[in-house]
């Protein structure tokens, strides 16, 4: 069965390593923070200028001057640092963030990503997404494998305006975990109860299936 949003976040959280500085995008990526494995510490970077983002504030802690990149009120964790936006993106562009998790409309087999614009429909702007995908050494994209209408989001070539090129290394969808390399999607894991055939049918780009594909494992 397709994973829930929480389960996608749980699976992504398994990619975290102790001591990682992580930037989590809006949506499912934000949920990853709730599933950090035991014994592992990560520090969250928010691109408006906060390293060490804490939980949401209680009602009387709410402070208009303390927000995250999603413009939500947040707190600063113990040991946090706050800085200006040029410094924040120096950090991002310079490759100092260990992992970036973000959503997308489409990814293609070259590792290109489209996540910010649907011509004539959605022109809100790219925010920090282009900097994040250009700067991160390690990018995980989370999205549903296919649209509501059943159209695959893993394509041979992205159809929408790009956010970045040759940058996506790993994709966690509601159906599968895939690696992007050598111009193809490599199927690594499938969601519990989801067949390889279903993944094949919903992957428009070149998909490599080698050997038995294990089911994702979730801790109890």
């Amino acid at each position, binding site marked *: 069965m397709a994973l829930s949003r929480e389960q996608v976040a749980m699976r992504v959280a398994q990619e975290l390593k102790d001591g990682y500085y992580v930037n989590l995008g809006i949506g499912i990526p934000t949920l990853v923070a709730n599933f950090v494995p035991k014994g592992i510490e990560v520090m969250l970077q928010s691109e408006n200028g906060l390293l060490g983002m804490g939980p949401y504030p209680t009602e009387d802690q709410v402070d*208009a001057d303390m927000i995250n990149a999603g413009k939500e009120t947040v707190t600063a964790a113990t040991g946090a640092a706050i800085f200006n*936006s040029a410094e924040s993106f*120096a950090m991002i562009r310079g490759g100092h963030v260990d992992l970036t998790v973000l959503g997308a409309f489409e990814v293609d087999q070259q590792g*290109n990503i489209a996540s910010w614009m649907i011509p004539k429909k959605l022109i809100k702007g*790219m925010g920090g997404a282009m900097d994040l995908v250009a700067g991160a050494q390690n990018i995980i994209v989370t999205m549903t494998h296919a649209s509501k209408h059943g159209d695959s989001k893993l394509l041979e070539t992205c159809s929408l305006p790009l956010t970045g090129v040759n940058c996506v290394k790993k994709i966690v969808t509601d159906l599968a975990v895939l690696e992007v390399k050598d111009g193809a999607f490599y199927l690594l894991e499938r969601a519990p109860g989801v067949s390889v055939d279903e993944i094949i049918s919903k992957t428009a780009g070149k998909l490599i299936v080698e050997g038995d594909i294990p089911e994702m494992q979730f801790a109890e």
Partner: protein
Amino acid sequence: MAGFDKVVNSYAEAMEGIKDGDTIIAGGFGLCGIPEGLINEIKRKKTQDLTVVSNNCGVDDFGLGVLLHDRQIKKIVASYVGENALFEQQLLDGIIDVELTPQGTLAEKMRAGGAGIPGFYTATGYGTPVAEGKEVKEFNGRPYILEESITGEFAIIKAWKADRYGNLVFRHTAMNFNPMAATAGKITVVEVEEIVEPGELEPSQIHTPGIYVNRVIKGNFEKRIERVTTSK
């Protein structure tokens, strides 16, 4: 105004000299850390044909969004304008021109403008619509695009504290674009919560040295919050 005392006492004085067609660099991220009173003064003055450089354009009735009602903005350079229906309408109607710029590139363009660096290379946006018409150059086998710096006739800034010499300290994430914007204005005007005497700010803890600042005014802030999110 003698010596280095940059404090002015009215918004009229603070924004004196702004004129139709000017480029205004504005600090702030969303509604956080925005110079509320300076924006309202620009609205009051009905200055036209402005180019506004700011990460966002406020919301419909607050922040830079208030300049949309009288169509004061001709062009905006921003990374994200998604919170503003009026903006989107004016964009579709062709009343306003928008240059969408990645957030980090925008921050760096402002910094470069203030720092006398006319252009820099970045991988951000390579291969995307942002790269259209821009020079591409390879460094160590990777392609980068040339981005040019931004400066403006005015920079409008929100800080927490200023001393009379214009040295600034920002509070929490209300810092955001303000320090870079402050360097990129020909005339930099700062609206603050508190004005202190020179010597009260620890020299090595000043975020923006007074050399970048021309005018300081004490404001009153609503500090509207876009998304109040709480935990129990």
